[in-house]
């Protein structure tokens, strides 16, 4: 599957989230949206108009928000608990651990504006630790869709999945990468581009940058495989091991710290099963400076050309 990378139209994945949730809620009256005053930033305005009783706004109180979500699930409701990703995860991490994961409550956690979507607002509002915080918790699938199509598919999948999950959504515009009608399968990577020289693995807003990097590499005579790995946990070990064995080098890129995120998760599989050279691109363990998400991604070496350069350098380190 060679997905389009030059699509001029960029989409805010929150719109796909909101439209899908409203459609699901029309069909299933147990669905409720829970939020922390974030009706606007979570794009829940339409939901509020259509289902005013089913929008549970707890005010600016994230710990309570997550606990209330667990209680709503206990009472037979299907809650989508929505809030800005840094506060939903960071402020409420113990509630996520005890009330949601350990209790195995059927709650869908939706982290909005993850990564560096709030770039200019500074590190308090960056959510570049949430993969690390959430993927270590048992019972919690961790999912970062790459485009509006995968976002809609994941939101729909979550309703049918019995158990908690964490959906990590961005507000940064991304082009379409997956075909219309794409069905989300938990723990399955999507092969977006075939290649045998190196594998580029990403999710969320980085997947389309990987596709652009692969195009640049192709111009340089290098065939890069591209995997979209929306599910960080449970991770697609099979696809990662195949990538290691068949291409001999792996580059990861993520809108997250290089510590504990997607790159770390891939590296854990690689080192256990098929060690090959890797390069993990991301925020290098610092509080990021001021700038838009796009600026910061470029700043930290994730412009498509920089990704291509990193891949090329890595290929030189491949085992003979």
């Amino acid at each position, binding site marked *: 599957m060679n997905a389009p990378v030059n699509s001029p139209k960029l989409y805010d994945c929150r719109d796909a989230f909101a439209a899908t949730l409203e459609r699901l809620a029309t069909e299933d009256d147990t669905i409720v949206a829970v939020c922390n005053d974030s009706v606007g930033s979570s794009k829940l305005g339409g939901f509020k108009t259509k289902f005013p009783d089913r929008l*549970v706004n707890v005010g600016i109180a994230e710990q309570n928000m997550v606990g209330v979500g*667990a209680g709503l699930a206990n*009472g*037979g409701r299907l809650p989508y608990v929505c809030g800005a990703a840094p506060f939903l995860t960071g402020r409420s991490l*113990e*509630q996520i651990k005890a009330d949601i994961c350990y209790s195995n409550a059927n709650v869908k956690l939706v982290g909005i504006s993850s990564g560096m979507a709030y770039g200019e607002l500074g590190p308090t509002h960056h959510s570049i630790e949430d993969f690390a915080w959430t993927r270590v918790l048992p019972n919690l699938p961790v999912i970062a869709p790459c485009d509006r199509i995968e976002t809609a598919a994941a939101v729909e999948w979550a309703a049918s999945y019995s158990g908690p999950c964490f959906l990590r959504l961005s507000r940064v515009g991304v082009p379409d990468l997956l075909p219309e009608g794409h069905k989300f399968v938990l723990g399955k990577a999507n092969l977006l581009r075939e290649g045998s020289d190196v594998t580029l693995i990403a999710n969320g807003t980085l997947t389309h940058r990987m596709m652009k990097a692969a195009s640049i590499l192709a111009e340089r005579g290098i065939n890069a495989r591209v995997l979209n790995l929306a599910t960080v946990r449970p991770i697609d070990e099979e696809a990662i091991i195949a990538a290691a064995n068949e291409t001999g080098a792996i580059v990861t890129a993520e809108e997250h710290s290089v510590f504990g995120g997607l790159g770390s998760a891939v590296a854990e599989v690689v080192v256990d099963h098929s060690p090959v050279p890797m390069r993990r691109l991301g925020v290098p363990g610092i509080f990021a400076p001021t700038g838009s998400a796009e600026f910061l991604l470029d700043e930290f070496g994730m412009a498509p050309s920089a990704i291509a350069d990193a891949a090329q350098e890595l290929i030189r380190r491949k085992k003979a």
Partner: protein
Amino acid sequence: MEISELERMARQIRLRDLRAVYEAGAGHIGGEMSVIDVLTALYFRVLRLWPDQPKNPERDRFVLSKGHTACALYVTLAKRGFIPEEEISTFLKPHSRLNGHPNCNKVPGVETNTGPLGHGLPVAVGMAKAAKLSGAGYHTYVVTGDGEMQEGSNWEAIMAAAQFKLDNLTLIIDHNRFQQGASLSETNDLAPLRPKLEAFAWDVTEIDGNNMHEVVPALEHRGDRPHCIVAHTNKGHGISFMQDTVDWHHKVPNKEQYEIAVAELSEALQ
């Protein structure tokens, strides 16, 4: 159950709890003794539940937010027929489902996992809100410790319960005046609790939480807003040398102390 039968059951639960903590060599006996009258009244009089259908959607919900007093809940659940009584002897043993804090995925009758403080009330608010949304008739009860009310998450939930007009929610604060390290007044004195809850638009009832004649009607009270019962209790209630002593938060009696305690509780049973 009538009041006299409830009082007798509470003493039996205290005796079994005492033995479990003594044999396991660990537990939180002080706070267990203080809360047992409330647990007994709930499980043997007030709560609508079906031990053979622990997930019946119409069951009343009970959350033990002060999860460290799990042993008292296990004994109560066993006496009520949710788990076998002989299983209490596995308390804290390797691979026992009866660990130091209750697990809803292993122990029937437990609604949500507690242990870290300040978690139960927000979850209970969600349970009560769910009933409002679905039209279910169940009532939700939650017990917190008084020291536990120092957790900010509780006050987030108190605000939400009032905003959502949850007249189907009852919070019982086990006000035994001691927390792990010292008295409440020496640590972060929340007393008096009544005006604080009233300021947040809750109904408040103050009772002697170790007097069944006051516990039962307070639990059965229904109003038009969320209800808080400030249950004035004694840490270590029923065992003379434990009462109102901070040491007995999680101290374990030695053989001599155990025998004295058994004798005192048994005498009260006769």
